[in-house]
């Protein structure tokens, strides 16, 4: 029930974002006319195929990690916790390594503009800074939670003790160290994918289409990586909050009713649950937005609808 509500809320937010950003997304589509149409369509198709490949690989890795989690109960849900991040890393690697060379016109003249393309050239600064801050927050939280954790009887740090009460699973060192490694890996894969977007050859025939494809690709990469980050960070916060709240609650011996709460642990636990839910929701929204952008066609289907026209002719000096 909660999961269904989560999905529904995610879709409602995605719909609101879609309606409010309609003008901006309309600007990410152009009409190609004249002799370049076929070449531009071929290029747009390779981009779409690559993006579908990314989604397929991400889905397969998610499924595989789910199977591993079911097959290995002794890993205490670790594969499931890492699944969004590892799936995103696999998808980003496919994204970065898939060849998407612009279809060449085979002209004897080749042009290049003299503006440097950087990994962050095709998105707003906050789109890169926010995930970077979130990644730093994940690492900081994993370290703090590691120090706050206590060992279970088998010696692994995956529970929390408040007073004389212990609860788990808690993201102590057992979950925290892989979490830190995954966050660093995700950041590296994101930077690699952004670097590939910036460094791929510029199309001299379709300057505007080339820019739009790079903007869309940057959006997909940032939404996918940030979405995965917020999803697993949200999940970790939820579990941390749940375990902390349980450990900080004193239950009556008989009917199990709540006698008292140990503060400030109970407040921290509740805060973690709320922030975790919000993070997971943000993550879900970003992942759905990345799916939408990955399947968005940069070429408008109908010519002459007022969209921008690709500069197929103007880029070829006589």
């Amino acid at each position, binding site marked *: 029930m909660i999961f269904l509500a989560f999905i529904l809320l995610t879709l409602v937010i995605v719909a609101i974002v879609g309606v409010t950003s309609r003008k901006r997304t309309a600007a990410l589509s152009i009409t190609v006319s004249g002799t370049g149409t076929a070449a531009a369509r071929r290029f747009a198709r390779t981009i779409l195929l690559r993006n579908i490949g990314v989604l397929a690989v991400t889905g397969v890795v998610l499924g595989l990690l789910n199977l591993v989690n079911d097959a290995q109960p002794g890993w205490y849900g670790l594969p499931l916790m890492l699944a969004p991040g590892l799936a995103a890393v696999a998808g980003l690697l496919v994204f970065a390594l898939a060849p998407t060379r612009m279809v060449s016109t085979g002209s*004897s*003249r*080749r*042009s*290049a*503009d*003299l*503006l*440097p*393309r950087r990994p962050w050239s095709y998105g707003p600064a906050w789109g890169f800074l926010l995930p970077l801050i979130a990644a730093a927050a994940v690492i900081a939280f994993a370290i703090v939670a590691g120090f706050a954790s206590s060992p279970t009887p088998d010696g692994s740090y995956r529970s929390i003790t408040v007073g004389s009460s212990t609860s788990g699973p808690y993201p102590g060192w057992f979950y925290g160290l892989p979490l830190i490694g995954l966050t660093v890996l995700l950041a590296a894969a994101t930077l690699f994918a952004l670097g590939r977007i*910036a*460094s*791929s*050859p*510029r199309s*001299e025939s379709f300057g505007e289409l080339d820019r739009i494809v790079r903007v869309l690709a940057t959006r997909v990469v940032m939404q996918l990586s940030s979405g995965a980050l917020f999803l697993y960070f949200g999940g970790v916060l939820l579990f941390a909050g749940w375990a902390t709240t349980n450990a900080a609650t004193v239950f009556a011996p008989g009917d199990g009713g709540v006698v008292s709460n140990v503060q400030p642990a109970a407040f921290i636990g509740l805060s973690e649950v709320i922030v975790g839910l919000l993070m997971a929701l943000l993550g879900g929204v970003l992942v759905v937005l990345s799916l939408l952008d990955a399947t968005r066609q940069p070429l408008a289907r109908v010519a002459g609808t007022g969209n921008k026209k690709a500069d197929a002719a103007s880029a070829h*000096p006589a």
Partner: protein
Amino acid sequence: MITIDDGDPRPPFEQIRGQLADQIRAGTLAAGQRLPAVRQLAVDLRVAAGTVARAYAALETAGLLTTSRGSGTRVRPDQELGADSRSSARRFVQAQRRDGANLDEALSAVRVEWTRDTPA
């Protein structure tokens, strides 16, 4: 924007070097402006990275560019031709076009005058 033409008798290195030098002297590339990385320019122009690197190195030797590890390759300050020189060049080109001369003929005229006025 720079262009490589396979039909040009000059090698690609010389085409890149010449166009960049012209744009720096004309002020199209401003002082301090950062140029693309060697690899970016090479993939866009479909030439070897070494070709672009050689052009950048020649421009650095000529004092038009400066390269540092942190800030990349940038246009050195004070390399732009003076306003008088550019305006004279514009007038000269307009006169040559009126006379129906092509670029090669116009450059010949410059070379002749350059040699004539060179102090001994």
